[in-house]
């Protein structure tokens, strides 16, 4: 089986994002593999471990530095990587087309794993665009996965913890959600081994795909302001609760349905 896993190089969730002029931000922060993509890599590697005849190829679109995220995927057990290089920040529409072009140029996917969303741009759509352009069924926010005889069964998280059990044929795309697995810790020998694995670098511009007529353009970034001023409710617990009840019931911008 040819298993592709799409990963994204994103600022660490603890990073402080400093907005520069216009639509730029200070990129000199710590970058990591998108946490949901890490779950996707883990699942891809587990599928490979069960079926010895498989190859896991990690694909990313990003700047030169994104190779580090590929190395993380390789250290976790992916066999080789593809870096589609660009200094621009392509939108989901271009990203999906570029991923498709790079994957098709490389081989014929039996299954593609991605994370359910990226924690930086939070677009929530690239996996759908990729699957649909490849004419594959897609299930996102998958929290349980199994495969037998060319058919995949997944559980997708729905609202308030409900789960939707979905069946689809291979080839298909699976968007990994939190809870699908616990990604393995990468050990030093794995990191060393990953350095020797092959990464194919392709320039985005050199990829052959039709440039889309629609786009999403980030015209401005602004730091989100934190306007809250904390009033400490003082007094004995009984008094504090009384104040709290009063403000819950009476604070104009919020009404409570009383039973």
């Amino acid at each position: 089986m040819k298993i592709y896993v799409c990963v994204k190089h994103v600022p660490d969730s603890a990073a402080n994002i400093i907005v520069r002029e216009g639509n730029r931000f200070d990129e000199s922060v710590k970058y990591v593999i998108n946490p949901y993509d890490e779950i996707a890599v883990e699942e891809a590697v587990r599928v490979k471990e069960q079926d010895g005849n498989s190859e896991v190829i990690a694909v990313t679109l990003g700047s030169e530095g994104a190779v580090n995220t590929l190395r993380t995927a390789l250290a976790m057990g992916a066999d080789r990587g593809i870096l589609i290089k660009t200094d621009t920040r392509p939108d989901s529409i271009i990203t999906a087309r570029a991923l498709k072009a790079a994957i098709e140029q490389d081989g014929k996917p039996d299954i593609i794993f991605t994370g359910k969303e990226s924690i930086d741009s939070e677009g929530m759509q690239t996996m759908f665009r990729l699957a649909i352009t490849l004419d594959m069924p897609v299930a996102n926010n998958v929290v349980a996965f199994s495969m037998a005889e060319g058919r995949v069964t997944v559980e997708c998280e729905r609202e308030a913890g409900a789960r939707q059990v979905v069946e689809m044929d291979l080839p298909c795309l699976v968007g990994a959600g939190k809870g699908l697995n616990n990604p393995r810790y990468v050990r030093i020998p794995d990191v060393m081994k990953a350095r020797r694995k092959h990464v194919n670098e392709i320039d985005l511009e050199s990829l052959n795909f039709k440039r889309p007529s629609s786009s999403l353009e980030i015209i401005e970034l602004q730091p989100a302001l934190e306007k809250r001023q904390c009033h400490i409710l003082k007094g004995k617990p009984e008094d504090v609760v009384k104040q709290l009840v009063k403000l819950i019931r009476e604070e104009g911008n919020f009404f409570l349905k009383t039973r």
Partner: protein
Amino acid sequence: MKKIGILIEVRNGEIKTANYGVITAARGDDHELYAFVLDGSAERYKNQLQRYGIPKVIDIRQEQGIIPWNPELWSQTVTDTMLHFGINILFGLTSAQGRDVLPRVAASLEAPLVMDCINVNVADRTVRKSQFSGKVTATIRLKGSFSIYGIRPNVIDPQPAPCEAEVIPYRVPLSNGRMSIKEIRQPELAGIDLTEAEVIISGGRAMAKAENFSVLHECAEVMDAAVGASRAAVDSGYAPHYMQVGQTGKTVSPKLYIACGISGSIQHFAGMKTSGVVVAINTDPDAPIFEKCDYGIVGDLYEIIPMLTKQLK
């Protein structure tokens, strides 16, 4: 006239409240709003929909009747309906259902889509949404023949704008999808989804064990609230993943957010920043959460919450 489609979401046979915010966001002087109703109850919803300014309610079915829930079939249905009625703008909710339908519609129409919008300017075709989990607000411009907007639940206050509505029946021709929905499993404690709740009460590391969450559940019940958890509580196994608020969890915008025993990591703030009123209860007066809430209580949640529950009853 700009024709705008609104994908109506329903829970337990009623239109979700958050939908009225979506309708409010979609209204405009030269806008003609079309409600897409897929559950066969268009006639029944007509009154509520016209109250919020919807003149056209499309009762969408297939030849054999109501189209059962299946993200592929529903997306095909929405896409077909847009093309049939010449609608090139679509609004929906960034809910579990919206996340599974809107991107599929966008992909098949090659349409630009922004999910989780907190503000939409239809004329300019610009939206605002948070990125980097609420640390940054981005203004994004959509270009192309279509525009699709997924609205974050609860961020836009529903405002009535009464009009007269007509129900238009429409039958879609559907081809077979390639994914089949085998079943929908409900959790033991079925409740409101965090992303759509108007009130959330969340527990952090101080919950100390899963059983203690019952204190929050009891309080949530009297307030019609959803119960959330911090990543620390989820990672310690006190609460399931789907209850996690914050980066790598859910982004929520309730009118009231009560944080109990949550110290307040940058990742947690990221997920609840757009809440209305934030109340924090923590025994540690130096907890970072007190710097970013509206009301703080330095005290023991196990003392405060049961008392609150009792008084709210």
